[in-house]
């Protein structure tokens, strides 16, 4: 019960490459490297991503290896970056752009929601926008309100977009390759607190590196983790936890610490969603807790609650609880009072078990 027990799906374990220990940053870089190599139409740009390799170093070395017209720095204009990517997509390229922090996606919101998401539909497939928009998200690094947000819910309300968030290096690489190959625009959210290790919310404890975690073993070559497929991160029978990103590890810690045999589902693809896996689990356990870092109101947790009660109403034995960030801006000093850590998640697990 202590070690992560995520079940591998057939499609994932099929890969035969040798595995190397990688951080999430290395895994993401490897995904981009593989795709730059495989597909001439892949280009990568964003603020500081060229010569320097990005403020989180995800693109380090890629310009030197693949050249300045495949990997380059962009002006500080998120709207411009996405707008340019839409035009490149219409030409036939597959741009992979970085928004330096998810908090800075708002200046690009119009190009994302009105353009990238709608181009295929409005032109009846005359033009498409197969872009991947990478953005580090989430808190836990004392980044304050503009370096900590988790805006996934906004993107899930925009039809035409796919929204993805990996929780570990293996998935990060496989999902990023799948996103780049996908013909739809994909919002690819990277929980920055997981870049270097499987952070479980115990901020007062030393950082565990990915090398110590089985999901830090990553094939060097090409493989994909399919979109729209959730992973049962930890099987269990008492209740179902729906989570993604950092919260997968927080939920795991909460289950371990409360002794509640929670089935933790890592959504991986936030929208469109693997509803079948969710419904099967909740029908089995009869109880459900939804966990995310983002503020609560109209967060993606609301949609999950709505879906679960629509599809599992007669199986539910207790109200579904949401454990989330508070409905305040992400504060700087009070970070750990804001963050839904294992204690708060654990308390919710207990309440739902006792309800």
């Amino acid at each position, binding site marked *: 019960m202590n070690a992560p027990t995520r079940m591998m799906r057939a499609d994932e374990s099929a890969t035969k490459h040798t595995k190397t220990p990688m951080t999430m940053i290395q895994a993401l870089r490897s995904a981009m490297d593989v795709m730059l190599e495989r597909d*001439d139409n892949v*280009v990568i740009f964003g603020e500081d991503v060229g010569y320097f390799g990005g403020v989180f170093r995800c693109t380090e070395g890629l310009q030197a290896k693949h050249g300045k*017209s*495949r990997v380059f720095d*962009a*002006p500080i*204009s998120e*709207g*411009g970056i996405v*707008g*340019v*990517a*839409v*035009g*490149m*997509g*219409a*030409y*036939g*390229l597959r*741009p992979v752009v970085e928004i330096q922090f998810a908090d800075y996606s708002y*200046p690009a919101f*119009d*190009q994302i929601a*009105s*353009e990238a998401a*709608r*181009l*295929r*539909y*409005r*032109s*009846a*497939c*005359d*033009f*498409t926008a197969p872009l991947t928009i990478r953005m580090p998200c989430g808190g836990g690094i004392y980044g304050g309100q503009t370096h900590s947000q988790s805006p996934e819910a906004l993107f899930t309300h925009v*039809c*035409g977009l*796919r929204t993805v968030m990996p929780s570990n290096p293996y998935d990060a690489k496989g999902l990023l390759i799948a996103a780049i190959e*996908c*013909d*739809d625009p994909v919002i690819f959210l990277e929980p920055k607190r997981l870049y270097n290790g499987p952070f479980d919310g115990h901020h007062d404890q030393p950082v565990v590196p990915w090398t110590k975690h089985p999901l830090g073993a990553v094939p060097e070559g090409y493989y994909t983790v399919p979109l*729209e497929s959730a992973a049962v991160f930890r099987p269990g029978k008492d209740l179902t936890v729906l989570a993604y990103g950092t919260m997968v590890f927080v939920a795991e810690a909460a289950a371990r610490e409360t002794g509640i045999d929670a089935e933790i589902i890592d959504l991986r693809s936030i929208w*469109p*969603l693997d*509803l079948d896996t969710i419904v099967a689990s909740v029908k089995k356990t009869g109880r459900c807790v939804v966990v995310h870092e983002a503020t609560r109101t109209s967060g993606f947790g609301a949609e999950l609650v709505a879906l679960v009660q629509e599809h599992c109403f007669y199986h539910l034995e207790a109200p579904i609880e949401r454990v989330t960030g508070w409905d305040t801006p992400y504060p700087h000093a009070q970070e750990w009072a804001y963050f839904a850590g294992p204690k708060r998640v654990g308390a919710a697990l207990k309440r739902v078990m006792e309800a």
Partner: protein
Amino acid sequence: MNQHPPLHLHVPEPTGRPGHDTDFSYLHLSRAGEVRRPPVDALPSDTSDLAYTLVRVLDDEGCAIGPWAPDITPDLLRFGLRAMMKTRIFDARMVIAQRQKKMSFYMQSLGEEAIGTAHALALSEGDMCFPTYRQQSLLMAREVPLVDLICQLFSNEHDPLKGRQLPVMYSVRKAGFFSISGNLATQFIQAVGWGMASAIKGDTKIASAWIGDGATAESDFHTALTFAHVYRAPVILNVVNNQWAISTFQTIAGGESTTFAARGVGCGIASLRVDGNDFLAVYAASQWAIERARSNLGPTLIEWLTYRAGPHSTSDDPSKYRPADDWSHFPLGDPLARLKQHLIGIGVWSEQEHQETHDALEAEVIAAQKEAERYGTLSDGRIPSASAMFEDVYKEMPAHLRRQRQELGV
């Protein structure tokens, strides 16, 4: 601080309003032939004067004069005149069809036909335009089948866009015409991205971006200039300054005591200000900019001076905010009449040919409309199926949309 009188807010006004005529001297026109033509490899900073003067070729008598007078065959001139006429006839017919409720909405381009027409003729096959809703002349010059366009306008069963888009929001990739967005200005930066993609791939195709004077205030205008300059993108940045943005005069977009072309120079982009009602000037300036772009010399911004002669759209009544007869006083005249005068002047056209062409085009438009009507109109209910509504949101339809389609029972 006390010595300073109170501040006050300046809110620009047009020089004319309903009840008193416009003083058009604010336009600062140059005489035909007066403005220099720099070499195509001029530095952007060396085009500064051209952003404040006005490139014109046709004089009041319809003669082509000066360094910008292009080398252009009578065939091409006649083709251009015909495309402009077709645009105007098409617009007029569609405005009527809208009144007859055959479509929900229409936007005409009356008075601006020269710009898209001559520009399209200067571009090459494969180049991509990123238009607004007022560049139907690009489609006419590229001879897109009228029936297809009318089916889009009627949102009928043959609408290539499956009923999804407001009338005029065409998408015609094969004619180099990008899908029109309802959100202003978004296409401007996308065109830059398309041009950058062409450069990345070592292609020879260029992009041509379109925007109105009013929409230059949107941020995508600025990002387009920035990115085009930084990466020296092969793109033409066209600003159609037709003096109005719905009810607001071009000074509300920032045209007072400066020009839209001047924005380009400031950003390090070669810039021209051109008589948009002068077919020959449009052709020549377009050629110059196209040659720059295709030779890797970077972007050119062109401000086309023209006048929105009709209402903004079929939902608008311009006599509420400007003199009803304003266009008739506009000093750059009617682009169609001016080209016709030139062709007759150089002896390659006649009043009779003009009338015959007009009648033939009108018949062509009527016939196309008739054919389109056979496939239905918005009001008669023969519209694309409701199930088409669920398609193309994604490449493959995800489970939730399949469920929703089922819920609707289509």
